[in-house]
């Protein structure tokens, strides 16, 4: 695709409906101006919530408490298994309990800067304000946060922050927050206000007269295709990191709900903004099914290095100090091993590309604790990282007390997602997106301990107001789940399913998924080039064609068929991957997780272009069926920074 083509297609600017006024009072004012639904009428309104992670479960529970009739859907066997459960580190809040100078404004400032000035200031400010309410709510639910001896809540500093504002529950903060939301959800199930549909996957969105009025689902046990109608649809279905096949995401995490909503008219924002986490356990073989994250805190005491000479296969102990390259300490003397995630990841890739990677595959770098053990003693290291060392040893069979860990970056989070306005509504009226599923608050890079904050902020404290406002402002005629639009969507779903089963080709779904992952990882991963992205777009199109000719999906549509579930999800990833590359191709700057090799400073750091690129890129679906002429329409939401002035990050 040429640049001229993209420029020709720029359509009207998007209106995010941000209230005007001082940023500190915007949310108060918005809450006052939002219309309310008569409490007696709430039960007459059905809200469909898809996804039961932090965002979905907290939203469904809160809507139930308010009195709405809620239906909540998840593909897992229980809402408690949503992937939020795997978050380790913690959740930020501007409580300033440590008296170290934190404030709502400071959390706001750090988050806008951390996002490399590609997020919407008003949203981020609101997020920082609500952060304090989240902690209160979760404590009251009985979330067992870490405590000091006096009984107060403990905090730690995380991800290079200069204040201690992270609340945590051992290394299982996501699990405990999710169980809190899940328990609140189950309470509403018991009260009869929420009906839970586990093992149910949303396969299409139904739009009636321009409004989201329902969804089509597949019961994963019986295969039954069903329609559900409602007054609003909420998607809390998480991110799309599994487009890369290998990621830290759960195996079932997928883009299907947001992608199908996109195909029904919801704009998809900043799809190329993906986050790569620098400290994961490297791939060990072709069979590998996922990557395991090791907490970022390890970089506080570990030193990262590779051999100076390419192809040096000696064991680490035999490589003398003079023949090691502590490349982060060398390049970034002031931050050293503690540079932000994107910088650490990119540098690891660079040394491996030079042939200096370690381990059997050559895709790994050492994280060495021997200096720290010598300085602090083995007991201190054991106390700080004992559980992580144990986990590492369980997976790799190597003892990090004796030999350096091997780590490598992996896809961890996707900042892109459905475009939403200040009220979390997508460009389809009545369709809301919350949590990782929307593009919202993290800009081009997410800071540690802020994903959980955003999911719960959206679900507990923003969405329930926004849905009420939408319902009270619009006259929503009753729609019948047997209506023409529903029937048409059901038929579409049935046809796709039938088509997948009837190809009876020669290659498995997983083998296609792996190949797709490799293309996207190589060309739209840690660093990107215009030429590489053009190549990737060609390759993805070819692979997509091959998929629909040669995929082999066993079994039938009328029972539990895990291959069929995967086949539908991979079909969507094959389309989304192309849009990611189109977005990455058009964004001619480097920012946050998006590093274009053409745009770097003389010393090799990311070069942002605030003059031309300070906007959200939101893409409109134009039909893939017409490929190779496919080109999505770009809509722009300009970003202005009144409170935090853009500056170039430097870690030298």
């Amino acid at each position, binding site marked *: 695709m040429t640049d001229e083509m993209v420029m020709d297609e720029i359509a009207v600017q998007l209106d995010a409906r941000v209230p005007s006024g001082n940023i500190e009072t915007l949310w108060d004012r918005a809450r006052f101006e939002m219309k309310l639904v008569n409490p007696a009428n709430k039960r007459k309104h059905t809200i469909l919530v898809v996804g039961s992670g932090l965002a979905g479960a907290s939203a469904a529970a809160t809507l139930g408490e308010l009195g709405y009739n809620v239906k909540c859907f998840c593909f897992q066997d229980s809402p408690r298994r949503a992937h939020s459960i795997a978050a380790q580190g913690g959740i930020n809040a501007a409580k300033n309990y440590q008296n170290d100078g934190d404030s709502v404004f400071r959390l706001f400032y750090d988050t806008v800067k951390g996002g490399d000035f590609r997020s919407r200031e008003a949203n981020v400010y609101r997020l920082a304000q609500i952060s304090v309410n989240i902690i209160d709510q979760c404590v009251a639910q009985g979330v067992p946060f870490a*405590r000091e001896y006096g009984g107060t809540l403990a905090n730690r500093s995380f991800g290079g922050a200069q204040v201690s504002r992270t609340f945590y529950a051992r290394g299982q903060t996501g699990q405990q927050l999710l169980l809190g939301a899940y*328990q609140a959800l*189950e309470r509403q199930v018991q009260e009869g206000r929420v009906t839970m549909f586990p093992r149910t996957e949303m396969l299409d969105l139904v739009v009636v007269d321009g409004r989201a009025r329902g969804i089509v689902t597949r019961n994963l046990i019986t295969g039954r295709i069903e329609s559900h109608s409602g007054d609003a649809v909420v998607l809390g279905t998480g991110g799309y990191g599994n487009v890369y096949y290998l990621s830290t995401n759960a195996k079932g995490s997928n883009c299907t709900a947001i992608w199908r909503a996109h195909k029904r008219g919801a704009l998809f924002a900043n799809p190329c903004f993906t986050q790569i986490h620098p400290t994961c356990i490297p791939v060990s073989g072709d069979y590998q099914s996922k990557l395991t994250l090791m907490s970022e805190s390890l970089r506080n005491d570990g030193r990262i290095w590779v051999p100076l000479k390419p192809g040096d296969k000696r064991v680490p102990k035999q490589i003398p100090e003079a023949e090691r390259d502590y490349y982060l300490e060398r390049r970034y003397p002031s931050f050293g091993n503690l540079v932000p995630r994107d910088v650490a990841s990119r540098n690891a890739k660079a040394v491996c590309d030079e042939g200096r990677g370690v381990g059997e595959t050559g895709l790994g770098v050492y994280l060495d604790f021997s200096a720290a053990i010598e300085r602090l003693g083995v007991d201190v290291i054991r106390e700080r990282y004992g559980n992580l060392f144990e986990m590492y040893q369980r997976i790799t069979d190597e003892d990090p007390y004796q030999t350096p860990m091997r780590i490598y970056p992996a896809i961890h989070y996707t900042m892109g997602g459905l475009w939403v306005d200040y009220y979390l509504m997508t460009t389809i009226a009545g369709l809301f997106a919350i949590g990782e599923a929307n593009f919202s608050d993290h800009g081009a890079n997410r800071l540690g301990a802020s994903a959980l904050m955003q999911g719960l902020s959206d679900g507990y404290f923003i969405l329930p107001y926004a849905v009420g406002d939408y319902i009270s402002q619009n006259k929503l005629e009753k729609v019948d789940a047997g209506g023409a639009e529903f029937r048409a969507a059901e038929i579409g779903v049935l046809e796709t399913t039938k088509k997948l089963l009837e190809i009876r080709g020669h290659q498995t779904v997983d083998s296609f998924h792996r190949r797709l992952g490799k293309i996207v990882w190589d060309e739209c991963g840690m660093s990107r080039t215009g030429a590489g992205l053009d190549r990737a777009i060609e390759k993805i199109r070819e692979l997509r064609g091959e998929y629909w000719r040669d995929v082999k999906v066993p079994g039938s549509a009328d029972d539990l068929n895990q291959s069929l579930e995967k086949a539908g999800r991979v079909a969507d990833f094959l389309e989304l991957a192309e849009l990611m590359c189109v977005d990455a191709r058009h964004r001619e700057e480097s920012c946050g997780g998006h590093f274009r090799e053409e745009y770097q400073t003389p010393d090799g750091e990311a070069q942002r272009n605030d003059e031309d690129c300070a906007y959200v890129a939101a893409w409109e679906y134009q039909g893939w069926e017409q490929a190779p002429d496919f080109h999505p329409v770009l809509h722009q939401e300009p970003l202005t920074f009144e409170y935090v002035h853009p500056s170039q990050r430097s870690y030298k």
Partner: protein
Amino acid sequence: MRLTLHVWRQKNAHAPGAMTRYEAGDVNPDMSMLELLDVVNEGLILEGGEPIAFEHDCREGICGSCGFMIDGLAHGPLPATTVCQLSMRHFRDGQELHLEPWRARAFPVIKDLVVDRGAFDRIVAAGGYVSVPTGSAPDGNAILVPKENADRAMDAAACIGCGACVAACPNASAALFAGAKIAHLGLLPQGQPERHQRALRMVRQYNAEGFGSCTNIGECEAACPKQISLEAIARMNRDFIAASWGRR
């Protein structure tokens, strides 16, 4: 290395099942048990067969989706490890393994190694929460919790709801699962107002689901991948008895 697998295959809840033998050659010792099944399944699909259905999601031991019996042991032979983190280096070259779904009346088989654990959700719905609607919470530090209690509550709250405790118990009791939630909330001040009601309702529900009674055998604790202590059951019993006594 090579392994021989005998896997329980059952088309659906109503069909009869049987053990089926599969040969797995070229097993990498670094593979997890689930990655081994992935490889076996890829082979089955290409041969025109039906892959083995098994539950999994996070593959890092926290979501609680996975789990089956390996040679009669829930999650296999390694302590504190779910099958998704159980690597093949713990088995011998040429070893034969028997994989079966959780066996309990309250966990009906759906297909192959997949069972229905919906009963666990209903036990939580019966009372496994603190009733605190969004917005009604006091400041976080207004509720002080002694560190020791917070730590013990966290120990109990670490339960991942996988069902290994039920599968390991000769009575198929869910006492450790319900007890873990009752202990978690009962150890915290936030859980006190509903403490007795919670125990009564949750125990009533797990009886209704068809789980067996606890006879203090302790297999559950040994099988638990999160090492939840039997103490949780003692706490549940204490709350349940106090609640029943108080109601007389």
